[in-house]
């Protein structure tokens, strides 16, 4: 076992952790910005727009992340009109290609999470808000979304962990993320086990950090849904809340 090589190359792994965190956090944030309007469109079934969003979600949930990355990184570069366009300075960079792919992928999954949470919101919440004279925008901004997004938290936590693990595909397009660091160690010193077990441990640590953060957030934002000891409420009543 040559774990000394891992320690001697700690900067490689530190850089890898930073790269992985950048890609994960940014793609989840951008994905959320995509998913919020898309989720509402899906939940309301808005004409035309719904079909478009549906197609987007279908494509990105229906194909492997790796294939999406290959299409965006190697595929688009094949067309001269892409290379001549104003987008090329962005698409030229592996980092941007990875971020775009991960964001679109995360956005597609999150759209369905938000749609589900909105559709399971009790009808009464919307009716009560409308009865109070709130505008359609305010009904969503003040009542429906805060309620739906809270209930979406556990599922969203899953999605973020999935993105963290999914970001490992970035190492294929020359980016030095955590897996990339492991691969470089392996290629240079032929230590497959040491390099990849280090990568695995780093991923586990990051995963537990994320899971912990979401647990904290759930504790705070879902407090009103928690069943406390001694609380004698029937399950049906909880669903009504």
């Amino acid at each position: 076992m040559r774990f000394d090589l891992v320690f001697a190359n700690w900067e490689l792994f530190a850089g890898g952790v930073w790269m992985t965190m950048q890609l994960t956090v940014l793609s989840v944030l951008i994905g959320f910005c995509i998913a919020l309007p898309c989720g509402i469109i899906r939940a309301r079934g808005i004409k035309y727009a719904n079909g478009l969003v549906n197609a987007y979600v279908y494509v990105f949930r229906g194909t492997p992340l790796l294939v999406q990355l290959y299409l965006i990184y190697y595929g688009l570069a094949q067309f001269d009109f892409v290379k001549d366009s104003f987008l090329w300075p962005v698409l030229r960079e592996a980092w941007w290609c990875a971020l775009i792919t991960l964001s679109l992928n995360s956005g597609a999954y999150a759209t369905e999470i938000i749609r589900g949470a909105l559709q399971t919101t009790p009808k009464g919440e919307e009716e009560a808000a409308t009865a109070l004279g709130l505008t359609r925008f305010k009904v969503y901004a003040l009542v429906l979304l805060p309620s739906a997004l809270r209930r979406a938290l556990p599922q969203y936590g899953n999605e973020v962990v999935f993105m963290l693990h999914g970001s490992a595909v970035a190492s294929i397009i020359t980016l030095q993320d955590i897996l990339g660091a492991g691969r470089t160690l392996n290629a240079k010193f032929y230590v497959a086990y040491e390099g990849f077990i280090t990568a695995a441990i780093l991923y586990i640590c990051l995963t537990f950090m994320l899971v912990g953060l979401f647990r904290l957030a759930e504790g705070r934002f879902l407090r009103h849904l928690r069943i406390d000891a001694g609380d004698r409420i029937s399950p049906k009543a909880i669903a009504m809340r």
Partner: protein
Amino acid sequence: MTRFITATIAAITLAGAAGAADLKICVEGAYPPFSETATDGSVVGFDIDIANALCSDMGKECEMLKTDWDGIIPALLERKCDAIIASMSITEDRKQVIDFSAKYYNTPGRFVGKDGMTEADLEGKVVGVQRGTIHQNFMEGEFPGIELKLYGSQDEVYLDLVAGRIDAAMADSIAILDGFINTDAGEGFAFFGGSYSIPKYHGDGAGIGVRQSDTDLRDAFTQSITNIRESGEYETINSKYFEFDIYGG
């Protein structure tokens, strides 16, 4: 149900056993013209022809196992295959982990870039190399100031060179010539700079990798390389791919 599972497991095991050959050879399949994947999924090229010639000279039945470059030495060490015939250069670093036969060819490394580029233009540019190759070590040692991009396979280096994500690539001259410059994709690209063959980085040519414990197999390969050189079979294979003898001095 149990019977079904048992039958399935038996079928899988048998299918695996049916393919058992005397020797399993790790090849790469993404390094034309030495080794490339044909449209039907089989691996063809100079390395594969040499492998077959060596096997028949030794009177052994060989099975080619397509393996990614990154995992090719681990695959040998983990006994997934018994030898590597993948244009692997004989270097001191690798000799710490595996053993090599004598070389079966030796060609220098060169830069490739847009027509008219020179080595002086490299300043501030990005050069692509395949990760874990002698060319990576060479670039890090001799051109430390130049940004390197590391790829899993040589094919991906060419893709990004054409796409313009990298300005130049450093690789084996023959691999570049037949795998890139002489193809449609390589139009408008040319060699530039010197021909590099520095033993410290480039080693002593490409050899056949075997486990350090398999000294008999190593010697058998070395002997067979001499045999096919003498019998003219090497020349036949060589002329199928190249216009000159790539065995080297």
